[in-house]
């Protein structure tokens, strides 16, 4: 409860208390004016006022809980968004690194990093608040899968990797992920 509301309630208590005492003094016949009646009146007033304040506090607490929940949710979403942006940037950098690995014939390392890209692309579909062409994304996911299979062939000498096409495919993946990153940044 805010400070000014507390002061207001305190003043209200005193004013009503004074009013009750005043009315008691003015309108109660003299033969009924005794300590028992006065204490009953004061006790009743204090109880009623206490109940009123307790109800007010419950409502205030409820409002605080709701606003806290909203704040927590907003913070969580913001943190998730920041994480998603940094993850996307990291994965785009990873793709560039894969291209470097391919050009310097480090296929095992490229395969490891490409596995990360594949896992991340699966996770991307669960990031809220981003819109993208799922069909196109699915097509690129399949290319990554084919890329992994072809890297395997290259590593096991079962096929010769076409570096140019491989890097072109990687660039397409990097482009769509960069677009998603920019989309998240602009929100």
């Amino acid at each position, binding site marked *: 409860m805010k400070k000014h509301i507390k002061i207001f309630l305190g003043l209200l208590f005193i004013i009503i208390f004074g009013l009750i005492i005043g009315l008691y003094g003015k309108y109660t016949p003299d033969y009924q004016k005794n300590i028992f009646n006065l204490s009953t009146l004061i006790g009743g007033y204090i109880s009623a006022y206490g109940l009123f304040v307790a109800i007010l506090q419950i409502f205030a607490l409820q409002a605080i809980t709701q606003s806290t929940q909203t704040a927590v949710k907003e913070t969580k979403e913001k943190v998730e968004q920041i994480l998603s942006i940094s993850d996307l940037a990291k994965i785009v950098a990873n793709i560039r690194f894969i291209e470097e690995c391919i050009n310097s014939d480090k296929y095992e390392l490229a395969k490891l990093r490409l596995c990360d890209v594949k896992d991340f692309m699966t996770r991307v579909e669960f990031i809220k608040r981003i819109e993208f062409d799922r*069909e196109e994304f*699915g*097509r690129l*996911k*399949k*290319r990554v*899968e*084919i*890329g992994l*299979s*072809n890297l395997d*062939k*290259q590593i096991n000498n*079962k*096929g*010769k*990797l*076409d570096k140019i*096409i*491989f890097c072109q*495919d990687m660039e397409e993946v990097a482009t769509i992920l960069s677009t998603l990153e920019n989309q998240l940044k602009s929100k």
Partner: protein
Amino acid sequence: METRYADLIKKLTKLTIDGNVEWEKSSTEWQYRLELKSATFVIDKMQTQIVEGILYNTSYELIMYNNRNIEISIAKETIATNSNENSILYELYCAAENSYLKETETIKKVMDELNELDLPI
């Protein structure tokens, strides 16, 4: 080979020859891919050396990637170098290669152009 797979290969070959689908070069030598909405197909040619420098076996393989990125091997055939048999996978491979290179189409266009130049004035 299962009938449904043979039917699929024949259908792909026909659509490729008719120019209704277009294959692209994939990231391995002698490999082409076809990206459809429901799946991606990859056709591969592999050569295995039997006798050093002389004999080769050529294998063709068609793989399908479904929408859950699962690799499904549709068919694999091996043809010996001295064999004259033509498999349906070989036909699909040739069609896919031609679809990417557009060799037949380009040669036809070039011939038409050359014929036009060759006309007596």
